[in-house]
């Protein structure tokens, strides 16, 4: 772990977006760090992630990757080769088998030799328990399996930073675990990740730091123990309370 920040976000703002607005968001993350962003829906979490890999153009502020501005319409293709992203809806390519999905980026974008990438892809599939699915089509997989493939697809680009946007939100509860285990493994291996999630127990387990976003502002930034057990702001307390149920009788 070096002390130089891998990603720096300074006074980021984005208006009039369907997924919420960002007013003034600043934070920095170091190599190997895992930051979890939580907050009520419409608080701008997804917009933040989409701005970082250039799917949305910010209206103000700066985003730096390894000290370089990346929000100025610089070479977005180059940026995205270093910043991986996985979505809630998996978005595997339906017309290609699993192996085709995994190798497309490394072979076409990074121009790596196909046999080498295929070998690596098969190893990676085995590690997430999908060794026998290499030749399957996406529609033959369960949601949890699709999402694990999507994670492997992003990882095979060897990104400097991985963005995960509510990757378990569309999954049946029993499949959430198998996907989150993969993410926990990645964290253990030192992958730098910025994660948006509604799984609070998972957030507490995986995060080095938690950002609490509301109304487009960072209201709280704290280590997970402190945030989940002693939230400082009233809004964060209220937010965490929505995950509790009162007994009926």
């Amino acid at each position: 772990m070096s002390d130089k920040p891998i990603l720096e976000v300074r006074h980021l703002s984005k208006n009039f977006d369907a997924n919420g607005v960002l007013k003034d968001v600043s934070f920095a993350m170091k190599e190997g760090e895992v930051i979890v962003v939580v907050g009520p829906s419409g608080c701008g979490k997804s917009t933040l992630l989409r701005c970082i890999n250039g799917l949305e153009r910010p209206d103000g502020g700066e985003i730096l990757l390894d000290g370089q501005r990346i929000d100025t319409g610089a070479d977005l293709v180059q940026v995205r080769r270093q910043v991986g992203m996985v979505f809630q809806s998996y978005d595997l390519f339906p017309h290609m088998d699993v192996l085709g999905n995994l190798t497309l980026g490394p072979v076409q974008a990074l121009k790596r030799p196909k046999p080498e990438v295929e070998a690596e892809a098969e190893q990676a599939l085995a590690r997430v328990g999908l060794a026998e699915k290499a030749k399957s089509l996406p529609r033959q997989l369960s949601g949890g399996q699709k999402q694990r493939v999507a994670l492997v697809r992003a990882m095979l680009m060897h990104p400097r930073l991985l963005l995960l946007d509510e990757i378990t939100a569309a999954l049946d509860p029993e499949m959430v675990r198998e996907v989150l285990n993969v993410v926990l493994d990645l964290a253990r291996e030192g992958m730098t990740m910025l994660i948006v999630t509604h799984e609070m127990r998972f957030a507490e387990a995986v995060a080095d730091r938690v950002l609490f976003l509301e109304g487009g502002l960072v209201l709280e930034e704290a280590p997970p123990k402190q945030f989940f057990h002693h939230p400082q702001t009233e809004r964060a307390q209220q937010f965490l309370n929505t995950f509790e149920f009162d007994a009926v009788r």
Partner: protein
Amino acid sequence: MDMDFIQRFTPMYVKAAGLTLRIGAIGILLSLAVGALCCLARWYRVPVLKQIASAYIELARNTPLLVQLFFLYFGLPKVGVKLSAEACAITGLTFLGGAYMAEALRSGLEAVDRAQTESGMCIGLTPLQNMRFVILPQALATAVPAIGANAIFLIKETSVFSAVALADLMYVAKDLIGMYYKTDEALLMLTVAYLTLLLPVSIAFSLWERRLRYAGFGGSVQGQ
């Protein structure tokens, strides 16, 4: 029914069917090319070309082929542009078909989920690679039924070429009716000829469409 008559003139129909098929095939291929160009000009919002493509599509889709043909064959020579009947037919068919193919391809492109494009971007593909490996294969799969319907439509439309003195199926039938008054036989052979031409095309496309559907191409894969 006069079987001798039918036998005697079958070769004429076969020859005419060959002409119909040849012009139809050339027209369909050129239509796909023109359609693809128009579709891409609009998809990538190329200035000027985009407007020209849109105007052309509206013009071609909202006017009959027969009128387009009369303009090309009887009108243009009067101002010094002389095209052979066959050239007129191919030009007219391409003018009409290009617009329909452009629309079929566009609806194919639009049916590809935006998230697919974003996914392609997220694994670092350039816009061109994204189009080639991710978007286009899915768009074409979705567009197959519409392209097939257009192909059949265009072959059917060739029947008006007899009006500009092209010796196609319709022309032969009209000739035989005029010369021998064998209306029943001439019309029967005409109908059979078109069925023989178009049934295989129709069946081939519906089989292809079914195969694509079972392969699970196109459509959204979101959710389950």
